Structure formats: C-alpha cells, structure tokens
C-alpha cells in the first residue's frame, strides 16, 4: 500500500540514450511533482502538475519532458541523456488545496546514473 511509488529504483544508461521514470500515487492527490537531488544532496523542484495541467516548470533543459496521463501518474521522460543528468529523481504528491501549504509526500527516488 505504498503511497507514492517510482519505477525503476535504479537506472544505469549510456550517454545519448532516452529513458523514462514512472511515478504513481494512491493518495487521491491532485498535484504531483518531480524533484532532482544532486550528488551534494541539493534538492530542487523541476516540474509540478495539478490534475494533469503543468503549473510549475523550472529552468530545466527541454530534454526533460513530464507527462501526466491522469492525476495519479506523472512520468518523466529524458532525451539524449548527459553525464550531468546523473542524480536521484524524486516524485512527490500533495492535495491541490486553495493556495495553502499542502504537505508534499515523496516517493523513494530513482537513482539515475549516466555513463
């Protein structure tokens, strides 16, 4: 009964490849997020979707494309992978609320290693 799940947990790939990470939440939340945690543990938001609509899009290379087929899923597709993309990617979800401080709940992370 995992609340926020991600697949795969580990992903090792070569430079130039295209890969996807999947995220699913069973909390009934309307909003989902992708974060990147670098090797120094710095955590930064990349994207946020509210009920399949993109609402936060930070300065992220357009090689990264989120896709939300429904409000319980938010996938992250990465084209032409580069060495600098190596990181841990976290998915999170929260209630949409009305602008209040909705708590975000995080998945276990996907460790991406680009060789």
């Amino acid at each position, binding site marked *: 009964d995992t609340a*926020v799940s991600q697949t795969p947990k580990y992903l090792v790939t070569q430079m130039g490849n295209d890969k996807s990470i999947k995220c699913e939440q069973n909390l009934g939340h309307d*909003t989902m*997020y992708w974060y990147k945690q670098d090797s*120094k*543990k*710095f*955590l*930064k*938001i990349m994207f*946020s979707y*509210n009920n399949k609509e993109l*609402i*936060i899009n930070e300065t992220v290379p357009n090689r990264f494309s989120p896709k939300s087929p429904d409000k319980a899923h938010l996938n992250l597709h990465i084209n032409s992978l580069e060495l600098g993309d190596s990181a841990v990617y*976290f998915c*999170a979800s*929260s209630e949409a*609320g009305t*602008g*209040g*401080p*909705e*708590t*975000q*709940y*995080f*998945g*276990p*992370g996907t460790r991406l290693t680009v060789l």
Partner: protein
Amino acid sequence: AQSVAQPEDQVNVAEGNPLTVKCTYSVSGNPYLFWYVQYPNRGLQFLLKYITGDNLVKGSYGFEAEFNKSQTSFHLKKPSALVSDSALYFCAVRGYTGGGNKLTFGTGTQLKVEL
C-alpha cells in the same frame, strides 16, 4: 525569491542529549515552513510544518520546531536524541502567494547521534 539556509552541514550529539538543527529563511510575506527527514537511500519523510498560530509546532517522532518571525528562523528540536534519529534533515519554505505549491529546500543538515 524565497530561500532557506541551513548553516550547519553536520550536527553531532550524544544520545539522550537535546538536539537542535538550525534553519533560517527568506520569503516575501508570511512563510509556510517545513521540516523533512531523509534516511539513507530513502525518500523524504514529512516531520512537521508551520502555517500560522502557535510558534511551537510539534511533529512526528518527538520532534518540534520553533518559528521566530523576528529572527526569520525555524529551528528543529528534540529534547532527547536517539541513535535512530541519525539522518539528513531538510528545511523548506513556501511563500504565501503565487508560484504554486513550490517548496524551496535548504542544503540539508546531517545529524549524527552517537552512543
């Protein structure tokens, strides 16, 4: 722009002693403040948040945090540390208006509790 500072990369404390993990923030208007904990190879777990009202917020696992508006601080505390509290702790802030539910995280503080 909103920002968070965690001035200590690491905090060491003996088991049974009180612990404090420091956090200061900068945001326009009233802040929403959060503490999360990350255990090795795990996702972030929510500990507590400050919205408004009582400056002392109680959270999970015996943790609490004190909001101080004049010092723009939100330090995490626990009266008696346990070895199992050893983990990476993140403070995060969200501004009151606009930007979706965008959290800005600090750089994290590694807490080490020793016997």
